[in-house]
Each structure stands twice: as structure tokens, then as C-alpha cells.
């Protein structure tokens, strides 16, 4: 399969993520959109890695497999981030009885 299809897909996913983050006020949905963006990038990384391996980069497999390693890192970090982020949202809900992100603009005071 041509690489561009993968690129189109991940760009689409990424844009959906961005628009979600920008337009939604529910912090859980915002959170999901961020995940969506991360995974769009992951997809791209894996796709390029595969492409390089197929295009005879076998001489330096390390170069191509690095991308897949990055994906794992991103997934681990994302998982950690989700746990922290969800905890924050829970705390936020407990304090304000809302998960609206605009509700919490009082940090500045």
C-alpha cells in the first residue's frame, strides 16, 4: 500500500484531535482527543518505519526500528499521562462538580 494513505489517515486523525481539543469543553473529551493526536503520530511512525524496512534499509535496521521503539515510549508515556490526567479530572470534579475546562480558569489567582 502506498505510504500516502497512511499519511492521509494520520493527518485526518490528528486534525480531528486538534479540532476536538479546541472546540470541546468537556475535559474528558479533550483528553480523548489528545490521545487521538498521539496515536495519529504513532501510526505515522509505524508506517514510515515499515516503509524504510521495505525500501531496503535492512543494512541499518536500527534506523528503521527506532521509530517503532518511539511508539512504545509514547504509549508508555501516554498511559502515565492518562493516569495523572484522569486523577486531576477526578479532583477537579470533586471540587467544582464540573469537568468543564473553562470553569477552571481561576488558577491565576
Amino acid at each position, binding site marked *: 500500500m502506498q505510504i500516502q494513505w497512511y499519511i492521509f489517515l494520520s493527518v485526518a486523525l490528528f486534525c480531528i484531535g486538534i479540532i476536538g481539543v479546541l472546540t470541546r469543553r468537556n475535559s474528558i473529551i479533550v483528553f480523548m482527543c489528545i490521545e487521538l493526536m498521539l496515536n495519529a503520530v504513532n501510526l505515522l511512525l509505524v508506517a514510515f518505519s515499515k516503509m524504510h524496512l521495505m525500501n531496503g534499509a535492512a543494512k541499518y535496521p536500527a534506523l528503521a526500528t527506532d521509530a517503532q521503539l518511539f511508539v512504545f515510549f509514547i504509549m508508555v508515556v501516554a498511559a502515565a499521562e492518562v493516569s495523572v490526567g484522569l486523577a486531576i479530572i477526578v479532583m477537579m470534579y470533586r471540587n467544582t462538580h464540573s469537568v468543564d475546562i473553562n470553569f477552571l*480558569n481561576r488558577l491565576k489567582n
Partner: protein
Amino acid sequence: MSAIQLIYLVPLLPLVGFLINGMARNTLSKTATSVIGCGVILLSFIISLTVFFQVNKEGFTPQVVSYFDFINAGKIQVHFAFQVDQLSSLFLLIITGVGFLIHVYSSSYMHEEESPHFARYFAYLNLFVFSMLLLVLGANYLIMFIGWEGVGLCSYLLIGYWFKNVEYGNAAKKAFIMNRIGDLGFLLAIFWMLQAFGSVSFLDLFNPSFGAISSISAINSPTLVGISILLFVGAMGKSAQIPLYTWLPDAMAGPTPVSALIHAATMVTAGIYMIARSNLMYTLSPITMTVVAIIGLATAVFAASIALKQNDIKKVLAYSTVSQLGYMFLGLGVGAYTGAVFHVMTHAFFKALLFLGAGSVIHAMHGEQDIRKMGGLSKHMRITYLTFFIGCIAIAGIPPFSGFFSKDEILAGAFANNPVFYVIGLGGALLTAFYMFRLLSLTFFGKFRGTEEQLHHLHESPSAITIPLIILAVLAAVAGLFGIPEFIIPNAHWLDHFLDPVFAQSKALISHHELSHGTEWTLTVVSSVLILLTSIWAYKKYAAYKGEAAPETGFGKVLQNKWYVDELYDAIIVNPIKSFSIFLNRVVERSGIDGLVNGVGRGVNYTSRQIRLLQNGQAGTYILMMVLGIIVLFIVQIFSR
């Protein structure tokens, strides 16, 4: 082993005296203090005397005794060295001799001071003698300058000796600052000499065979005129000439012996010494000579006119000093160098005598200085009266007392140079005779005008005061014999002969149209008769003074207020500088520079406060900004290809 090898002791001894009296001022008794204070000066005097006799021998050439490299940096190569020659040895004698008498006088005059202050007084006095000796002994202008500033400092310390009195403090400050103005001129002259000749030592400059200035033959070369004018500015400050003279009358705030020593006999003549020392430079720049003569003459007449209307016994003498110094500068300006130095010598005797006599009077009157409240003192204080009388005759210029000879020599020189100078100078001499006899009459003749209590306590001063008076009176009477003019007895002018090596180069250059003996006789007789008449007139006029106090009007008031010169200086110099400084402080410093600096800070603060509003706490906005940023970066990236 000659006495010249011991020359360093001459200034060193007073310095030792200063250190002992200064360090141990709390422990020494008054007797010990005065013995040390007077003793060191006496020793210096004895050494100076032996040096003098050595110098007086036939065929003596100036000797420079070098001690160590003082400053040796780049263009400045100056040794700490003393020069012994005719001029310096003569001044050594005057300084240590008159100085010793005044020290002795002080030990009695200041006896009422508390012991530490008494010691402080003697310490200052010794320090003064040290500086003055440094001034005249220095073998180059820099050492001379050290002494020059040193005497200024001592003058400051002694004028402000009674430091609790704010007014005395102001007088001291004024003296120091006015002197500093002159000193700036002196300093600039030194820089210029270093620049132009690479040396400031007298030998390097004036030696007939290799001196840098002796080899200049051009008359009025700009360098020499510039340097000599600047040196003269220095002399103006120290020797109280117009326009820097106003400090000297105020300096009378100091103890009277100080006025006698510093502000009459020695320090104020430093300017004359300096110009006499640099005579060749002046002879080669006639422009400066004319300036010196005119300023000297103007000062002589101007100060004498003020002295006419002063009522403070010390102020009269102070203006008289300024006026006499003017005569000395007139002498220098017309090329009568010997006459000027001669007048320095005779003036040292009679003016010290007059001041000390005034001190004796003030002592007897318990601090009263107003001559309108004195009168008839001749009956109570015979010795003071007689000696004061001799001083008066000497300064007025009545033959055959010393002042007659020295003043006559200067006036003859002035006549030879320009008869107008002579006429104005003679007018000044008549004024001198008038105010001196006014002073004498008001103080010693007529009826006593003070309080009963003062009359009751009137007494002759103790011998420590009268003996110096007598010695000085003798000197004031006979010192004229050192300089009997040519037309009276040929070849009897000892001083002229003695100082000849110092002024030889100048004399060769000045084309004197010699006055005939007939002219000189006429001049002398005319001036003597006029002076005598004026004296008698003044005596007659004021001997009958009753103490009526009609307020002065018109010109008399102007004179009494010293031509309003102090007020003028305040209005055109002091106050503008003060207001300008306040303006700088308030406007330029606070609002201008500091305002600018603080303005930058405030500007940063303001901008930050505006930018802060972007940080509104809405997570959505932040993300939007971020996305916009990324998009912008992408666009830049794409279009910059």
C-alpha cells in the same frame, strides 16, 4: 663638612617639633610644649645662619642637595632635592628668625588656652614653618608646590584654630579655597613646564649654561607667557592679589601671632619668592611683567583705600598687608627684583612688629579689636607704643627707617619703567601713611574710650611679648641699611650685591634707562616730604578723635564695605554655582538620568502588565495559540524554501 650638608635639618627640626607636640599633646605641659616648639625653630635658625654665612662668601655657586627620587613616572622625573643659594638662604633667615620671635611671643600670648589646644597650636605653627621652609628650599617647582600647599593647609588649620566658632571656620575654608584656585594655576604651570621642558628643576630651567629657559632668546614666546601667567595666578592666590585677595582680611580670625607670621611676614610673600625665583622667565615675557605690575599696583592702591575706613585694628593691618604685597608685585613687574625681595624682608620685620604690637594691645584690652573703643594707650603701654610707633614710621616710608629704602627702590624702578606707575604708586604710599597714622592715633593717642573695667586692667604685656617686639623694632628701624641706594652712598647696596647671582641673567636682559642721581634725589625728597605731611595730617586729624559715630555716607560707605567685593563674588560666582549644583541635583540627576533609568524599568513593567493579559487562564485559548503557532511555523517553513 659644610653647613649645607645639614640643610635637611632646617625643615626636619620643625617637623619633629610638630610630631612631638602633635602626638604628645595630652601629656606635655605648656612649658614643655613651648620649649619644644620654640627650641626647634631656634635650632633651625642657627643652622640657617651658618648656611647663610657660607652662602655669603665670595664665589658661592648654588648647590643642590638631592635626597631621593620623588616621582619617576613617564615624563615626570622629579627628585626630592633642596637648593641652597642666595635667595633661599635669605628667606631661610627671615622665616626661622621672625618665626622664632613669633613662637616666643605665642608662648605667652596663647597661655590661656587649655594644654592640649596649646600643644595643638604649637604643632600647627611648627608644621607651618616646616612647609614654608620646604617651599623656599625646594630645588624644583614640585617641591615648592608641596610647601606651597602645606602652608595653605597650616593657614587653614590656624585660621580655624578656634574651631567651635562657625564664622572662623568659614574664614578658614575661604582662605583654603581661594588658595586652591591659585594652586590650580600653579599646577597647570608645572604640567606645562613638564610638557615643554621635560623638567621642573630650577637648575635645568635657569642654569646659564644648560638651562632650558636660558637658551630661549625669543621675547614673549607663547609658552613662557602662558607658564608665567599661570604661575602668577598661583601667586595671586597665595599672596592675596586682586582678584583673589578677599581671604586675607577674613583670615584675621586666627590668633594674632598667626596673622603676624603667616598672613604678614612669611606665607603671603611666597608668591614674591616664586616669581623672584623664576625671574628669568618673567624677564623673557614682558607681557606678563606688565600684567604683574598692573595687578600689583591696582592691589596696592585698592587695598590701601579700603584700609582707610576699617575700624578693626587687625583688619587695617590686613589690608595694609595686601597693599604692601601689591607693592612687591609692582617691583617684580617693573623688573626691580632686588627691590621686591628687599621689601619682603623689611615688610616681614615691620608688619610682624605691627601685628604683634596689635596683639599686645588686644591682649591688654581683653579681646577688644575696635580702634574706636581704644585711645590713649601710650600712657599705659610704653614699650608696645614705642615699638608700634617705629613700625608705623617704617611702613609709612619715612626716612631713615627700613620701609623708606625698600619702597623707594620699588618706586624708583616704577618710575624708570613708566612714570604713571610711579604717580599711582606714590598715591598709594600716601594712603598708607594716612591709614597707619590714623591707626596709631586712634589707638595710642587721645582719650581712652573703652569701658571702666578695661581701663582698670590696662597693663604692659609680659616680657615674652615685649622682647620680640623690641627686637623686631630694632630690625624694622635699621634693616634699611642693607639696601642703601646707589645715589646716596655708592656701592653700599649690600642686598643687591648679595642677590646679584640670582638676578644676573635678568639684569643683563632688562634695558634699564638708568635714572640720573639728580632725578632720584628729586623723587626721594618729593615722596618723603609728601609722606611726612600726610602722616602729620592724619595724626592731627585723629589724635583729637572723640568717638563720635556719624554713619558713613557716600564713598566712605563704599570703602567701609570694602567696595562690596565680597558681595559681588557671592552674587556672580558663589551663588550661581550653588544654584546650578542644586539644579543639577534636583533636575538632571533625579529627574533626568535617574528618571530615564527608572523610566526604562517602568516601561518594562508596563509592557509586561499588558502582555500578562494574554495569560487569561483559559486552557482553550492556550491550545488555540499553540496550534496557531504551529501553523505559522509550518507556513514559514514552506514559504522559506
